[in-house]
């Protein structure tokens, strides 16, 4: 074998080794790599860390937002179109927080099954269009579910 071919082989084998190693590592860490868990897992309490905060992501159900008068406390319900999780939160919500929007709540489940959030993040989807286009679209298409977790 020529030196050049030897180098190619050595580099190729190391590359395969590296890809394999990364693949195995990520497979092992898969649960921890998730930024948030979906509603069904949260409701059924699958893989939920005990006595630790975690993030849960879902769509805000229309008409479920209730704001306590004279306070920043609010409650709303999240869904992945399979299960429903009630959330309680005190604080300011981001601009994109609204009905039908995907949001991520960071907190933990209370005894009564209500998720008590310390932070609320709004998720944005990958669709961009002017308001007029959205209006004409929404006549035909119902709410577009952008969450992968919901699929």
């Amino acid at each position: 074998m020529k030196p050049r071919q030897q180098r190619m082989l050595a580099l190729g084998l190391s590359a395969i080794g590296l890809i394999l190693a990364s693949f195995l590592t990520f497979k092992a860490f898969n649960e921890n790599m998730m930024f948030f868990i979906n509603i069904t897992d949260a409701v059924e309490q699958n893989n939920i860390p005990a006595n630790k905060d975690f993030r849960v992501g879902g769509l805000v159900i229309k008409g479920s937002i209730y704001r306590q008068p004279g306070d920043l406390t609010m409650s709303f319900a999240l869904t992945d179109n399979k299960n429903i999780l009630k959330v309680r939160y005190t604080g300011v919500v981001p601009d994109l927080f609204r009905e039908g929007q995907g949001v991520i709540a960071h907190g933990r489940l209370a005894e009564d099954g209500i998720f008590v959030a310390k932070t609320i993040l709004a998720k944005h989807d990958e669709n961009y269009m002017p308001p007029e286009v959205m209006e004409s679209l929404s006549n035909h298409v119902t709410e577009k579910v952008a969450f992968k977790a919901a699929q």
Partner: protein
Amino acid sequence: MIPWLFISGLLLMVYGIINGLFYAPSDYQQGDAFRIIYVHVPAAYISMMAYSLMAFAAFIALIWRIKIAHAVIVSAAPLGAWFTFLALLTGSLWGRPMWGTWWEWGDPRLTSELLMLFLYLGYMALRASIPNITKADKLSAILILIGAINIPIIHYSVEWWTSLHQGSTLLKSGGPSIAAPMLYPLLASIIGLSLFFGSLLLIRTKAEVLKREKHSRWIKDMILGDEV
């Protein structure tokens, strides 16, 4: 060729950004805040393209021992690092009002892009720490190749794992999900920035080659002409 690349890149970029900032319609959800896309997406795209180019050059350099490939890697690194920084910065500025956070540790897209910034910086630091240029070339090229595993991770991070970051708008099945008057300025700024990056890379590579070959015969001939 360099002036042509530079000027056409600049013109496309100016066209894309002016159209994006002033003439494209505002978004149905984000209003005018979405306009940061005309800087953020091209910067993020170049940050990954620059790294891919460096990894490709490192592969060529290690196997065929082509000297100019090392000069390309050296020249691309600071450019790539700046575009990575710009992508992180613009993303963070947008994230505060829209997501409700400047930065989220543990988000796969954000973290892998930050890791790429550290790869760029680590590459430059490694080079700077080795005085022997041949040895520095070889070791830093290996570092770049190892780090290349991060590129598909950045790209697919929003598909493999749940992430705060939205999925890809342009490179998705079924075509781009962005309205046409918003899309064209975006494409113009992406192509414009690529040409601009290309011209900067060529200028820097030229300078790097001249620096590396400063003792060679052809440079003396070139500078002194017939006097030698």
